[in-house]
């Protein structure tokens, strides 16, 4: 389990469904980070979108900024 409080803008995440996203803001509530979608295998057109990512969506931390 990832402690969201440690995430910072620029950190890369692997989300469910193989989505890769980059943290753009951590509002520090321990549940959500804002992230820009980099790769969205099921819906490539969504790449570039900025969404809230919940802790349950995060599979693992790919790399720190």
């Amino acid at each position: 389990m990832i402690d969201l409080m440690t995430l910072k803008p620029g950190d890369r995440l692997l989300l469910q469904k193989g989505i890769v996203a980059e943290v753009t803001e951590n509002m520090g509530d321990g549940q959500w980070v804002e992230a820009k979608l980099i790769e969205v295998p099921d819906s490539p057109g969504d790449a570039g979108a900025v969404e809230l990512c919940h802790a349950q969506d995060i599979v693992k931390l790919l790399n720190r900024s």
Partner: protein
Amino acid sequence: MAVKSRFDDVAKLVDTEQGFISREIFVDPDLYREELDKVFTRAWLFIGHESLIPNPGDFYTTRMGEESVILCRDKAGIVHAFLNSCRHRGMKVCRYEQGNTSIFTCPYHSWTYTTDGKLQGVPQYRSLYDGNLDRDANSLVSVAKLAIYKGTVWATWDRNAPEFLTYLGDAKIHLDQALDCRDGREGGSEVIGVHKWVFPSNWKFAAENFLGDTYHNPSHRSVDLIGIGPSAASGKKGRRDNELEHAQHVWISFPEGHGVHSAIQPENNEYVDSFLDQPVLEKYFRHCYEERKRRLGEQARLMPFVGTIFPNTSYHGRQPRGLCAWHPHSPTSTEGWRFFLVDADAPKEVKDYLRRYYMRYSGPAGMTEQDDMENWLYATSASVGTVARRYPFNYQQSLGAWTREHATLGGTVSVQVTEEIARGYYRRWKSYMGGGGWDELLGKDGVTQRAAE
């Protein structure tokens, strides 16, 4: 389906022409459920003050009827009001009284809303909902209309309701006297504190009290004898300074159901010594009085006392000064919220003194409010019995002693203590309970005006 009480015809319970009103409307659970549906989902309700949410992200958790509502200023500075209930399973998305946030996250399943009410975050949105959940359709439930008037915030669930100022009608000029600066500038007030407390009474007792029920004055006799006003230590007893000792008092019923007790100062409109216990305040209020006269001219003769904006918002206009929302909890339980008002640019010493004076007068520990609550709660508890319910309350005081022949006051005016305002209030309550259209609710249909006309 509309809520319907066990009473075939609610109108029969309220006879404003003869002056009798059934106790059932103050104690019956079915009628109470029906008025939540027919009054509180339609009327404009006072929900807060801009000064409670000055910055983007500020929120204040308020109420409309029994329901929790979030009053919030979004990051663009726009004020919103939403039902405080997640669209997923209904959990409160905000459990704090006030604060600042960028999002509201439901504690149950973490659905998350931005400060403009939009559903923004849904855990596992792409894996469990295939990214297809309609977020717009699942935003927080917004009020149908919201109005900001001189800092006060009002809302209604009825999209067909008239604009707020239409709803307020001619009561506006009286409410203005409570909301405007003491020196006559428009608006400019701020809330310096809110008292919240629950008392075992029907909410309408409190609302009626501030319509202009001057008749209950004897119940404050002990407070008057002790003297809790701003000149008490200087020998002026009473609850307040008698600023209106030379004024013509007027009691006014408005067709929308509102009612006020105001006063008209004599032509010379001389300042009456006030705040004698505090030289700084004495000087400040004397200055404000003269400034108000200079600014408003003849209009400055109109002074506020108390009033109730239908259905559940009351105000004190001078000493003390503030707004109060009477939130229903049950037929026999009410939560009072007193919002104490001062001029935002008043000196700190003035604000501090007024805060203490307001608390001495009003709210759960206020000596005058305690008198009132004792009346309301015993009147409620003594009306729930089987026998008591058979006997209606009497509202026959000053029947017919009113006029509409006046130039500027609006409404039906009495110059003697009267229950005409209460009769007007319950006449309009009856219209709401009958599901009347807005012409009727505003008293514009020509049918629901006094039959005596």
